[in-house]
């Protein structure tokens, strides 16, 4: 058994150039910048899920429709920050773990590069959803379908990232992996995915708690019967 593992474990040579910074500093930058990035990714995903839920509930209760709209307006801002803040950790992981990261990228290549068109489409859908709120007020089914489509994409993207990042950690699997699906079934992917989804909901709850609780937020002019307290409480549960 050990021999099989050894025989499929490559010994690639690293890029023969020095790191631009001491390793510990690069690791620090990577971790801190990744945290900043992932918080906004959480808000983007959690915010879209929340908007979808509230808009469906809003079919019966206008206040929830208003709440959905208020949340939808935050998604497009959070998503822009999520993207730009993602570049620093991307740069750092490229630099620090070149061999691991690039190998995993190539082995899941088609799905990996699909992140670009998929996220672009999801972003355009969130704008379409936000800016068509009044125009499509008479066609709620279509309007809800738009955000639902964006949510589906947003739910799938983390899986691609996790498959890639997870595969990085198993060089002994590089010789046996055949494409995205076979890397998907490696251990750790789904637990990490579920953790991420739950974290997104949790972080979004905290965000909404702060956002709607701000003193200068014109809460009373938006809602007829929902109170700050009900929204805050709903987010906690």
């Amino acid at each position, binding site marked *: 058994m050990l*021999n099989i593992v*050894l*025989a*499929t*474990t*490559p*010994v*690639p*040579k*690293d*890029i023969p*150039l*020095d*790191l*631009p*910074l001491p390793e510990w500093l690069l690791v620090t930058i990577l971790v801190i910048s990744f945290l900043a990035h992932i918080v906004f990714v959480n808000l983007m995903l959690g915010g879209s899920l929340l908007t979808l839920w509230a808009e469906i509930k809003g079919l019966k209760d206008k206040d929830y429709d208003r709440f959905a709209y208020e949340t939808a307006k935050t998604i*497009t*801002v959070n998503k*822009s*920050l999520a*993207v*730009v*803040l*993602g*570049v*620093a950790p*991307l*740069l750092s992981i*490229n*630099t620090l773990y*070149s*061999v691991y*990261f*690039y*190998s995993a*990228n*190539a*082995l*899941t*290549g*088609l799905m*990996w*590069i699909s*992140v*670009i068109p998929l*996220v*672009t489409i999801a*972003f*355009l859908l969130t*704008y379409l959803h936000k800016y068509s709120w009044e125009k499509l007020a008479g066609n709620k089914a279509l309007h809800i379908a738009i955000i639902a489509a964006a949510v589906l994409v947003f739910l799938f993207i983390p899986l691609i990232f996790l498959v890639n990042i997870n595969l990085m950690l198993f060089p002994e699997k*590089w*010789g*046996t*992996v*055949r*494409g*995205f699906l*076979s890397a998907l079934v490696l251990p750790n992917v789904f637990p990490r995915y579920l953790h991420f989804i739950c974290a997104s909901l949790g972080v979004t709850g905290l965000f909404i708690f702060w956002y709607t609780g701000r003193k200068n937020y014109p809460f009373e002019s938006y809602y007829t019967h929902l109170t700050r307290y009900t929204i805050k409480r709903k987010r906690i549960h």
Partner: protein
Amino acid sequence: MDFPLFHLDWLNDRFLIAMIAIIHVIINHGLAVGFIPLVTWLEQKGVKNSPSMEITDLSWDKMAWKMMKVGFIITTTLGAMTGVGIWFSVALVSPASIGSLIRVFYWAWFVEWMVFVTEVVLIMIYFLSWENANRSLTSKLRHIRFGWFLSIFSWITMAIIVSILGFMMDPGNWNTHHSLLNGFTNPIYIPQLLFRTPTAMVVGGVFGLMLITLFTQHDTTLRKNAIRSASVWILCWAPLSLAGAIYYYGVMPSAMTANMSTAVGTIDFSQYYDLLRYVMGGSILLVVLLSVTGLIKSSLVKFPLALFCCLIVFGFLGIFERVREFIRKPYVIGGYMYSNLLKEEDYPLYKRDGILKYATYTSTPTVTAENKIAAGRNVFMLSCSRCHTTQGVNSIVYVFERMYGIGKPLDENSMAGYIPNMHNARTYMPPFPGNRDELHALVAYIKYVQQTGEVLEGAQTEGVTVNSMNDVAAARLLLEKQQQENNREIAVKDTASAN
């Protein structure tokens, strides 16, 4: 050599990068660097020409806002994602080169990123606070000032990236002193910046003109004045763009300029070279004609015409980037790494022992009579697949058939005679890296591909086979052997000293 190789046989790997990068450049130059100052200028004009008792000319302001909305949505979706897409695609297609560049340019890209974050935050504030700013003159003026800040930041982002591009195109510098400062001081930095700045303004102007025809009613003074403003904008920048283009071309190191005609295209080089000049001259002439028409008789400027001109200048930008990118061949990093991702300094080793022996991933560490085709496939993957496909764009069969006759059966001996010398005849090609056995395996494979139409699959679908000479077991054996030799040497020394 050390990475599993992603390969798109139908599209061509290089084309994947080019596609994403060109969309990004068009959006960056046309919709950020050149477009935002235009919109800010228009917003300012609205305030200047406001009727008394109003902060701004409201219908004019609404038009500028609508234009900015289009710019805002496109830059923060397709623009941002293609920026990330360049990283994704380059890391997939060209891992060794981007991995090397990032170890040198980490700080440049980090600084660029910080400017980029600022730019995105400013663009959001600028667009999202537009309607609120119309409440008082003070806030409107502050909003306009914001627009100018944003314009400057967009330009700085471009100025830093141009430094990185400039460095990569100046051969030789990498080996002597590779620092960021070098990117700014290299001889084509200033010319490139002087060309890109006015060109971005022209492209932004044409894009803006197109939006004006979309967002204003025909035969209104609003439309007439807006078209005139955009025309003035384009006419101011077009001569500078032309001058920049000429200057840029002139100071390109002579080696690169000589290489230019071969780099432009893949079919008929001289034809492409002429085409570039026609496209450059033609598109500038076109936008000048467009804006002169806009000034004299704005009713002739309608959406289809404006859209056509817009697509032409986008195309021009695309062709320019294509030339710039291909001009540095046969290198990907001048004088250091060839476009097949193999380092120049490693070539003697590969030529002596073969490239397969040192590959981290190959199913055939050596060429034998039985594995000849498979070995040829591996040699192709390692030394040709970054630029050539088997059945798609720039396919290897097509390249040889063009030399020996389309549809004719390829001759292994002629190809084996040609490949070791191809870099002399075609200076944009890197030399063939492998040994004699690998050369014969490669030509057998090319002939096999011609006969069977076999498609080469990349690591993303086929996976990789770890080279049995380079896996952990082999490394362990090697270590043990070295250990034994060391021990023996020590023992020999001990006996020698004991005697």
